[in-house]
């Protein structure tokens, strides 16, 4: 009887300590660091941007406001040093044509940046994008400081 009790106590204590350590691990891995969790089938498209602004891994990819995927990786091309963004798009949206364009947009004035896809028209002469293809037509993120600089520059040249 006493043995049964101490076994139960040890089991519960083990469970408690394991739960505490799991909570610590989860806090340090999931809350403080990134770990991609895939949900559902998906495929990857690539896009080169001149400037990605504040885009982050796991930022959403939207078509007309509907989330169709997530950014899964951001790297720098080793040859021409332009950022390459890997777009992980859900399998159910697999018919984007070659004329698709992609841009980095901001939700609201101060909000998060996300990837906006503009699906191009579908034509017999155009092929659909295959997994691993690059999207050619990209627009970089708008950087506020550059915009202000351009505005000031155009104001200055207008006076002369």
């Amino acid at each position, binding site marked *: 009887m006493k043995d049964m009790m*101490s076994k139960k*106590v*040890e089991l*519960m*204590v083990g*469970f*408690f*300590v394991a*739960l*505490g*350590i799991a*909570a*610590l691990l*989860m*806090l*340090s891995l*999931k*809350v*403080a*660091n*990134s770990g991609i969790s895939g949900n559902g089938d998906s495929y990857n498209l690539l896009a080169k941007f001149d400037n990605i602004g504040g885009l*982050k*891994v*796991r*930022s*959403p990819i939207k078509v007309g406001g509907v*989330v169709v995927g*997530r950014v899964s990786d951001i790297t720098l091309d080793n040859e021409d040093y332009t950022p390459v963004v890997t777009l992980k798009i859900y399998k159910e949206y697999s018919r984007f044509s070659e004329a698709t364009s992609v841009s980095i947009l901001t*939700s*609201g*004035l*101060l*909000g*998060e940046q996300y990837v906006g896809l503009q699906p191009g028209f579908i034509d017999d002469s155009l092929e659909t994008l295959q997994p691993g293809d690059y999207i050619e037509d990209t627009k970089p993120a708008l950087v506020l400081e550059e915009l202000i600089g351009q505005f000031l520059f155009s104001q200055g040249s207008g006076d002369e």
Partner: protein
Amino acid sequence: MQQLQLLGRNTLALISGLGRAVIVLLSALLHTPNPRKGLPLLFAQLYSVGVMSLVIIVVSGGFIGMVLALQGYTILVGYGAEASLGPMVALSLLRELGPVVSALLFAGRAGSALTAEIGLMKATEQLSSLEMMAVDPLRRVIAPRFWAGFISLPLLAAIFSMVGIFGAHLVGVDWLGVDGGTFWSVMQDQVDFNKDILNGIIKSVVFAFVITWIAVYKGYDCEPTSEGISRATTATVVQSSLLVLALDFILTALMFA
């Protein structure tokens, strides 16, 4: 004159009480541990101090996370900044609410129980009987309870924060419609392991030390009457709660200011 004498008496009582508390702590902890005898005692105390506090910690952590998300959302949505809901909830839980609220709950749930148990042992002269049998009550009774509290509270605080973040996810993402990926990605971007998580753990370690020290000392030092036990239990909860809040301010000033 009488006032002055009262002040002097209280000061002396305070200082001698502090001295006794230090003596209890040191003589309970400063001895070579005996794993074969000590570990089963520690496990039994971990069960009654840690495992039994799990339910109240999980439930209140969940509700606090949910309330934080609800309140934060209604404020942040006015600025169009509901994307910052994740880091707001995570930072307030990891830095403040996780360590502090779980420490307050722990003082009420486990600290009071420790004091009452040890106080009753003293009142029924179990502690004296142990001494009669050449068993040191400080080693046999106080030390495992102290270590159990010291180990349990940081784990409980981590569980509290984790459950709170999932509660906030439940309300913010599943109910109010904040984007789930944004919730996690902005949170991961803002939360730093050393600055936020480690400092939160340090806080809860300090709180655990203070609460269990006060609890075992108050029980060991109480007047061995039913009234004395009730006073000691009240003093444990009140003093450890106040000390936790005051120490939290000092620690926050040291860590984040």
